[in-house]
């Protein structure tokens, strides 16, 4: 029995369970007497215990056993759980995480001093807790970096990179003539390459994670924030099934944390205030994800007090030098976007806005780097909404890849109605109007038009900025209709205003994806 291998598997599996355990505990905190929830929690702890036992991980299984005992009681209803108990269980869960990691790295799991404390606590009966021995809540930090899904993410990247390199290696095959190659070797190589490409492509899909998973990373921090600032707050997720690029989300981790912190600290009112205002005691934070045609829209909203407009007005008046009518005439979006300005300082402002200045800077920069846009909307006493729209983030779409001049470009298949061969002959009318080649600045002498892509205008399309939308593209050659892994275009390419992203084909070659709404 290869212990290390099984230990690794144990760590991965238990991490999953621990995550679910955390979620479960959070939920049960709101619904303390829900025996179903307790049953689930119990089950999870039991599973971890079982695995630990199988691998003779004593410390872990003991702790699990203790926690399990409590859960049994709560589930049976013999003892009524309370927040403190749940807190302890949560601490236990955190500890379990640390211990399992310790096991994986070969450290002594029992060395953690926390273990003593929690063990001691769990040893008592839940309703006989000595509440003074509780520790203060720790400072709340952002969730730890995403480094695990089911598989080590770095491994995925490595796998992706290596598979890409292996695929590219084919290009360095020296040209072999028929005599020099053993019979059947060429076909074997082709087969091999096809399989590699398939592998690479599937690996690429591992880069996606559902929004729900991303959002659930923030559940604990939000809860902790609530605790820290004395608010009651819950996190709702909308559009959780949407698949988004892990790398992208990872880059939004800090910004989101800032937004959430701001929302909890300054947006959501204390429960009593809320009650007075007629709102529910518990504030709601919403993390919503929506996929528009070619962009991903993430919304972070709260139903708190909204952004105070007065400091903004003062700033605009005093620092920018705008007049009151001008300020009133500003559209809401622009008005609130003022707080993103670099020189917008909150040093001499009321505590309501304290901390916003620095955080906003980070957020704005991150979004800029992703070629995205940030919109802010706020209504006093109703709440605030930060809408982040990112251009077609990493995803896999089907596109028609074609060549025009020296470039290889792509248009989403959903926008192409048909492909026709162009008959050689005198250029027809309309050939030069709206010609894609002209728009892209391609020298007409490099063109050898052979095909026409007839475009479809899907319902709800606005006309492009050039006025007359193109209804067909004249291209030189059509490579094919294939799935493309699309990455965001980057700052520089985004400046052209023509491209939605960079598409990676199965064999690693690149086709630049056109932004059909801007063409």
């Amino acid at each position, binding site marked *: 029995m290869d212990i290390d291998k099984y230990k690794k598997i144990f760590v991965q599996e238990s991490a999953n369970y621990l995550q679910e355990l955390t979620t479960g505990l959070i939920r049960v905190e709101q619904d303390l007497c829900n025996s179903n929830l307790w049953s689930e929690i119990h089950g999870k702890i039991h599973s971890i215990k079982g695995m630990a036992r199988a691998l003779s991980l004593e410390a872990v299984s003991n702790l699990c056993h203790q926690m399990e005992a409590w859960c049994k009681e709560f589930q049976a209803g013999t003892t009524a759980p309370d927040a403190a108990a749940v807190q302890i269980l949560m601490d236990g869960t955190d500890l379990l995480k640390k211990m399992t990691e310790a096991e994986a790295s070969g450290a002594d799991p029992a060395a953690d001093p926390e273990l003593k404390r929690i063990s001691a606590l769990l040893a008592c009966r839940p309703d006989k807790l000595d509440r003074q021995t509780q520790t203060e809540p720790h400072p709340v930090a952002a969730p730890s970096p995403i480094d695990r899904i089911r598989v080590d993410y770095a491994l995925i990247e490595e796998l992706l990179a290596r598979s*890409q390199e292996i695929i590219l290696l084919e290009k360095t095959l020296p040209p072999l003539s028929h005599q020099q190659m053993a019979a059947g070797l060429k076909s074997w190589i082709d087969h091999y390459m096809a399989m590699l490409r398939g592998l690479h492509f599937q690996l690429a899909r591992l*880069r996606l994670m559902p929004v729900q998973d991303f959002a659930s990373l923030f559940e604990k921090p939000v809860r902790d924030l609530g605790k820290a600032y004395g608010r009651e707050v819950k996190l709702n997720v909308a559009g959780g099934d949407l698949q988004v690029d892990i790398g992208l989300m990872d880059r939004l981790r800090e910004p989101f944390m800032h937004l959430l912190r701001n929302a909890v600290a300054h947006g959501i009112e204390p429960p009593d205030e809320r009650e007075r205002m007629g709102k529910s005691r518990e504030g709601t934070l919403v993390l919503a994800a929506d996929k528009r045609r070619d962009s991903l829209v993430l919304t972070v909203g709260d139903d708190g007090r909204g952004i105070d407009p007065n400091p903004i007005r003062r700033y605009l008046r005093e620092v920018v030098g705008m007049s009151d009518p001008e300020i009133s005439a500003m559209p809401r979006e622009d008005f609130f976007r003022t707080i993103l300005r670099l020189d917008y300082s909150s040093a001499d402002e009321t505590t309501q806005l304290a901390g916003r200045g620095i955080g906003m800077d980070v957020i704005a920069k991150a979004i800029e*780097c992703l070629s995205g846009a940030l919109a802010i909307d706020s209504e006093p006493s109703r709440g605030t909404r930060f809408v982040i729209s990112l251009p077609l983030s990493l995803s896999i779409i089907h596109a028609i890849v074609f060549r025009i001049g020296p*470039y290889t470009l792509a248009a989403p298949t959903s926008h192409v109605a048909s492909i026709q061969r162009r008959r050689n002959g005198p250029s027809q009318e309309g050939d030069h109007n709206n010609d894609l080649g002209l728009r892209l600045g391609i020298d007409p002498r490099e063109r050898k038009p052979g095909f026409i892509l007839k475009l479809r205008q899907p319902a709800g399309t606005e006309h492009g900025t050039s006025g007359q939308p193109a209804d067909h593209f004249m291209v030189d050659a059509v490579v094919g209709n294939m799935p493309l892994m699309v990455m965001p275009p980057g*700052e*520089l390419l985004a400046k*052209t205003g023509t491209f939605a992203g960079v598409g990676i084909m199965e064999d690693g070659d*690149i086709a630049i994806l056109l932004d059909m709404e801007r063409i």
Partner: protein
Amino acid sequence: MDCFVFEAGGKRLGIEARCVYRVADDARPAAVPLAPPCHVGVIYYRGDLFDVVDAGLLLGDRSSLKDENPYVILLKWDQHKLGLIPERIAGMKWIEAPKGAEDVFTHDGRRIRLIAPEDIWRLLSDLSYGH
């Protein structure tokens, strides 16, 4: 400090080691329409997208492109990913940190001009993209 030294556009330049990620050699940049002339294309390297520019044209006075398969110095800093095509690579060198002035001397006596990646990015951003 450690400095990655290369020659481009007739100049001897150096970049702080912290932002140098890799040197790639089998990159085939895909050309992007409407990009300025020094923007050679984009490459997909080990999962990341890099904008590849001709360092000679951007930072000096002559193009660095000579053959099909140039070395590309891949830079990664903050959230930026950039590839530079040099004329020649000298490699990682240890140099005395500059005291205010831009030019520094290496231990083999040649002058190197230190450039910060942010400056390169600004140069690039200021160029015209599109019509």
